[in-house]
């Protein structure tokens, strides 16, 4: 695990725990075959789908995404298979990322066995809402959603076919991030620029895409597996490498079905929080725990710059969720380590 040399660790009782030591026997057994799944929770953290861009006659950018609904069995904990409905073969679906003011075009094709749609949280016309009668399409059909990227923030999209509960907890959801246009926010241009994917200001940030989800594997209306990015305890088995010299920004969305609230608690640190990501100044400062209702989301910003190296846990602070898989580790070290 993680290539640490145990003997090099100090015997200081306050030293950071090592993976596997922190929760002892409270863990799933075995490993998930990410290759067979076709997606890996670790790469998902930094994988943004930016689509293809084109210039419109008026000089604006047209950004086109292609998304397909596909039925697919996925492994959500070692040895446990879930008959999922996916966007682009993965759960959560692709983390779509655009910039404020762009024209967005999402070509949606339904290869699944049921009617599906894409309902975007954001501002758009009723015709583009992804509800029955407005972009809900049957198997084999195609629909193109088109709207402007606004407001900037950390949003989500999900299938809005009925029954809603089932379509969502089967895996049909994903992050939908609209980066602010610095030119439109002169009072906070630097902050806005740091959020624009690919900008020089953005380069120093370690940005992570995290979708809190859960699975009801026996369809009894309660979840048996809780996770971030689908695989229970994925970041316990493969801690997330954090370069402590650079700040961390997490795009966090809660799509947990059946439980009204989910949460994120960061160990040994505090963060600033931007509720829904639609502001450039924090809506909460210096907190170590935030809670989100289903579909609530936000941006977390923090730094481990002053911390000693080690494993820093993060998890839902509903201990039940923690013990059913929603727990992970940040492997915090300097850039050279």
């Amino acid at each position: 695990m993680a290539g640490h040399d145990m003997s090099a660790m100090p015997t200081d009782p306050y030293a950071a725990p090592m993976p596997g030591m922190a929760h002892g026997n409270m863990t799933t057994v075995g490993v998930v075959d990410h290759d067979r799944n076709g997606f890996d929770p670790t790469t998902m953290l930094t994988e943004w789908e930016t689509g293809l861009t084109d210039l419109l006659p008026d000089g604006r950018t047209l950004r086109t995404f292609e998304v397909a609904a596909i039925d697919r069995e996925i492994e959500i904990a070692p040895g446990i298979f879930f008959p999922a409905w996916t966007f682009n073969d993965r759960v959560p679906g692709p983390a779509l990322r655009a910039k404020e003011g762009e024209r967005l075009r999402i070509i949606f094709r339904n290869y699944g066995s049921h009617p599906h749609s894409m309902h975007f949280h954001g501002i758009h016309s009723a015709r583009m809402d992804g509800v029955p009668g407005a972009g809900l399409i049957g198997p084999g059909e195609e629909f193109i959603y088109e709207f402007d990227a606004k407001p900037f923030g950390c949003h989500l999209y999900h299938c809005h076919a009925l029954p809603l509960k089932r379509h969502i907890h089967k895996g049909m959801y994903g992050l939908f991030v609209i980066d602010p246009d610095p030119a439109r926010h002169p009072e906070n241009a630097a902050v806005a620029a740091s959020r624009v994917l690919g900008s020089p200001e953005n380069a120093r940030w370690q940005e992570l895409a995290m979708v809190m989800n859960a699975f009801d594997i026996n369809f009894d209306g309660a979840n048996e597996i809780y996770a971030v990015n689908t695989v229970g305890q994925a970041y316990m088995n493969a801690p997330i490498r954090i370069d402590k010299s650079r700040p961390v920004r997490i795009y966090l969305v809660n799509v947990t079905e059946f439980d009204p609230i989910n949460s994120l608690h960061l160990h040994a640190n505090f963060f600033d929080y931007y509720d829904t990501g639609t502001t450039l100044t924090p809506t909460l400062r210096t907190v170590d725990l935030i809670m989100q209702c289903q579909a609530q989301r936000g941006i977390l910003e923090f730094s481990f710059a002053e911390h000693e190296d080690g494993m820093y846990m993060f998890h839902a602070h509903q201990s039940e969720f923690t013990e059913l898989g929603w727990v992970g580790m940040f492997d915090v070290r300097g850039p050279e380590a």
Partner: protein
Amino acid sequence: MIRLLLLFVPLAVMLGAFVWIASLDPLRSFNNGAPPVEALTVERTILDETGIQILVRAGGSEAMQIAQVAVDDAYWTFTQAPPGAVARGTAVWVRIPYPWVLGEAHRVALLSNTGTAFEHEIAVAVPTPKATAGQLRIQALVGAIVGLLPVALGLMFYPAMRGVGRTGMNFLLALTVGLLAFLLIDMTLEALELSAGAAALFQGSAMVWLTALACFLLLMAIGRWRGQPEGLALAFYIALGIGLHNFGEGLAIGGAFAAGSAGLGTFLVLGFALHNVTEGIGIAAPMLRIRPPLWTFAALTLLAGGPAVLGMWTGSLAYAPQWSALALAVGAGAILQVMVEVSAYLMRQNSDRQAALFSPAVLGGFLGGLAFMYATAALIKV
């Protein structure tokens, strides 16, 4: 030769048909992609300083895989022996190093790879008794108090009973049938209840009824090998039937000990003993006309009461619902046989068989036996 050929032809056709069906798989078209039916039954639970161990039997349509184990809604490490897929009908031990809490309830969930969750409730967590000499001695003592002691006490009424006349004799035999009737119903229900908790492939209630019936027929056949049993032979049959019942009773107490669901108090043990005194009287009844040697009383006591001790040990060490149900079903069959034989003996003792059956002594004895058993059973029901 011709007849042999006539036998061979249908056999060959049958074999051919099986091979054809197996190779062609005509049921394939019914496969709608639904996952296989899965079933897991927990047969034994052991709690000790290493955690929780459960013996799990698979009873699904195909071999199944235990993918994860959660205790009290927390995923926990576990080992499975033997590892791998659990074939239909086989059992595996699942060992979970879980820090269980004395006196509290725990819920173990076994998750198969198709996502089906099988829950097993540990109602009260107490350490499972170990097979130490001390434990076995204590259990033997309790077994002796609920099994051996009351039978011996009942048999001690023998000298006093010898003086009774025809009516008294009728009363005592009817009393025996009454107490046996209670035991028959009690045991059958108990067996059915236990069998309901067993894996589906054991076919619980069918197993209980058929076992009881088979046992009844076999014992009738053996009993009538040399004419109708009476006297000492009949007493031994009664002792055997009661012994099987006491084995079942011992199983129940031992199982309760192991599961920690019964803190068996002195009062409860005394209730059992009182309840079982009638058994000794019942065994003595058919011997009143003869003068059996003293050793037979010891043998009868051992035969009727000793199984309680064996039952205690078995119940606490190797408890599985289907085996307990099987033992009780055997006992039920044996008791039915004894009821028939004692009734037959009772009728033979009287010249007017019909009248004797509904005489006040017989009816009173029968109902008295039922009532006594019912009332004393109420003391020990928890």
